[in-house]
């Protein structure tokens, strides 16, 4: 499974790197696949409402009303119809890419399995919503979809009389059929909306909408497409005829030719097995859970930073249970904790300078405690010497640190770069354990734990507590956010950083000499 993920992840990383350059990380569409899907859903909803106003439910009226809207009102109704179709198609593209990406980046296990599992029925709902839409037009394509859908459904032993008998010949269908369909075509998206809401329940700071620029760009793209290639109907449905050649919407109707080719039973089996396999994936194979973050009440002052920064809502603030003079204390839900350590990075008591008491922060990661981190830094720093000593703080999910260590460079890997409390950088530099610190983590949209890179940047830029103290010389801190496939570029970044550190050392020495010279006459 890991090998398969790696094979799929690599092209994603290259493409995302290129899109980072073209759009910038804030607008990179690959970082908003779910959000873009949701955005398209709303375009479909709004355009659908407009089309619905002009839609007539009736055997001949349905087709005629859609035709009238498409041609006599091409500048608005036609565009709305086209937007309705193309945004629906784009939604499927986003949904499929979203599923593949979440799989490739291993974003579907543990607490994330909830989002994964609730996402699976959404695929069915999206397809069902689209398919019922094609029926409504009641053109040759709608006829094909109606007949084949009912034949496909009839294979299931749950219906009495075959539904497909409703489409035997002209005259076997009445207007009520469209009333039922319009109900389905509205009800299914409403259920989809509810499931989408549930889908996001266990994700903090979910990117449920794309950046404004990206949203406008993609909307403009759909509008241009709607004008250049308006969505049109086939000829009117006629059940006494079989449509010979159809321009299928392959995003929604891909299964229908398979039903024709392999039979309804085989396609049902593929669909059921596929759905079941998708549902089971978070446990295929089961993975050992790492110990969850733990609270030390003696050091927790209920500041809420860990709860605010947790990407998976695993930490909640609850009323104090001890006698400390604070209102709240943090509480970790081990079932939701992914052991990323971002909470430790947020804890103001993760202070390596502490000497009067043992280094035990209010929240800590048993796998790598704040104290163990400080001790490891000391051990590693002993190996460094000269003027360009660099301590690399890496991420276990990012570039392998063994590729970066070397000439006067040592590295320590954290579960996530976001686990690093900013005071540790201050500590390393002020204690002269290294000449520079390089924090090497995943790219903005590729953080294994979603928010590690973003929170780190915010802390270094003093936009988020706990922030990096002003006294820390920024030129001695390198922030390198790169994908594992870009390790050579990261290595080059670090080498440049080391050259700068050497230059700084030379400048300091020169300044020191001048200072000494200036001091000499006074003495």
């Amino acid at each position, binding site marked *: 499974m890991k090998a398969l993920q790696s094979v799929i992840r690599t092209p994603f990383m290259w493409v995302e790197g290129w899109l980072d*350059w073209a759009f910038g990380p804030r607008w990179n569409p690959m970082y908003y696949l779910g959000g873009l899907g949701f955005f398209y859903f709303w375009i479909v909803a709004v355009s659908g409402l407009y089309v619905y106003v002009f839609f007539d439910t009736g055997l001949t009226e349905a087709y005629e009303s859609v035709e009238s809207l498409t041609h006599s009102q091409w500048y608005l109704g036609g565009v709305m119809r086209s937007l309705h179709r193309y945004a629906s198609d784009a939604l499927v593209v986003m949904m499929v890419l979203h599923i593949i990406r979440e799989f490739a980046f291993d974003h579907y296990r543990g607490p994330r399995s909830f989002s994964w599992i609730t996402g699976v029925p959404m695929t069915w709902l999206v397809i069902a919503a689209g398919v019922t839409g094609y029926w409504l037009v009641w053109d040759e394509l709608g006829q094909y979809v109606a007949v084949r859908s009912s034949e496909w459904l009839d294979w299931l032993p749950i219906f009495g*009389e*075959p539904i497909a*008998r409703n489409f035997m010949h002209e005259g076997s269908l009445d207007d009520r059929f469209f009333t039922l369909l319009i109900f389905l075509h509205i009800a299914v998206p409403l259920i989809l909306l509810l499931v989408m809401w549930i889908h996001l329940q266990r994700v903090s700071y979910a990117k449920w909408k794309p950046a404004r620029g990206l949203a406008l760009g993609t909307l403009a793209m759909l509008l241009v497409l709607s004008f250049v290639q308006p969505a049109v109907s086939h000829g009117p449905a006629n059940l006494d005829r079989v449509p010979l050649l159809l*321009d299928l919407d392959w995003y929604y109707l891909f299964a229908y030719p398979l039903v024709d080719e392999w039979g309804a039973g085989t396609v049902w089996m593929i669909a059921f097995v596929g759905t079941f396999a998708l549902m089971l994936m978070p446990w295929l194979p089961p993975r050992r859970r790492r110990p969850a973050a733990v609270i030390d009440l003696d050091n927790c002052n209920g500041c809420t930073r860990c709860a605010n920064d947790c990407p998976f809502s695993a930490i909640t603030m609850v009323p104090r249970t001890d006698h400390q003079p604070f209102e709240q204390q943090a509480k970790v839900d081990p079932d939701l904790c992914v052991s990323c350590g971002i909470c430790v990075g947020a804890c103001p008591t993760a202070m390596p300078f502490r000497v009067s008491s043992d280094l035990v922060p209010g929240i800590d990661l048993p796998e790598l405690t704040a104290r163990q981190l400080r001790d490891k830094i000391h051990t590693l720093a002993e190996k460094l010497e000269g003027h360009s000593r660099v301590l690399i703080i890496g991420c276990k999910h990012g570039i392998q640190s063994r590729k970066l260590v070397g000439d006067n460079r040592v590295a320590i890997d954290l579960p996530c770069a976001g686990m690093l409390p900013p005071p540790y950088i201050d500590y390393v530099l002020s204690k002269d354990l290294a000449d520079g610190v390089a924090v090497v983590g995943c790219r903005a949209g590729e953080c294994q734990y979603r928010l590690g890179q973003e929170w780190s940047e915010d802390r270094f830029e003093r936009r988020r507590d706990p922030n990096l103290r002003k006294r820390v010389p920024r030129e001695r801190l390198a922030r390198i956010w790169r994908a594992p496939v870009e390790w050579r570029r990261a290595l080059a970044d670090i080498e440049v950083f080391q050259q700068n550190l050497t230059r700084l050392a030379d400048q300091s020495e020169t300044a020191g000499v001048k200072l000494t010279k200036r001091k000499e006459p006074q003495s």
Partner: protein
Amino acid sequence: MKRAFRIIAQGVVYCAFAVLVGYFSAAPAYRLLDDGEAQIKLSFAYGGKPVGGCRDRSAAELEALAPNMRKAQVCSRERVPLAIEFELDDKMIYKNVLPPSGIHGDGPSRMYEKFVIGAGEHKVGLRLRTTVRDQGWDYITRRIVRVDAGDNLAIDFDPVAGGFVISGAKGGG
């Protein structure tokens, strides 16, 4: 200059996405029937006659029943499976025995089949057995029908209308 390149790159991405969405939204075309082909749909839902008749209950049987259940006669609920044969141009293309539906076998027998045929004139022969017997047929229909390419010939069964009902045919004898 670099910014201009980036904007161009964004445009390329949007265009590529538009082409991807726009193309597969209505292409490639899918062909259901080849030129010169038509289709026959044969389908019906009909309950055959009951398998067994009715018999009188004995006094002991009636005594064993609750007072409100003491009906003098007991009748078989199970219906006979329908035997059907469909010939096209004197060639048997479908032959089946359709069991009744329902847990007790008292529901209608159902079928839905499609056949692709060539356009032109065809001799259609249909036979259906709906009663308990080994030989012979209760309903027989023979017709010559003409279909054009792309036609859908629907064959249903309606005993009130006299048996098999063929619709969608262009004519014939």
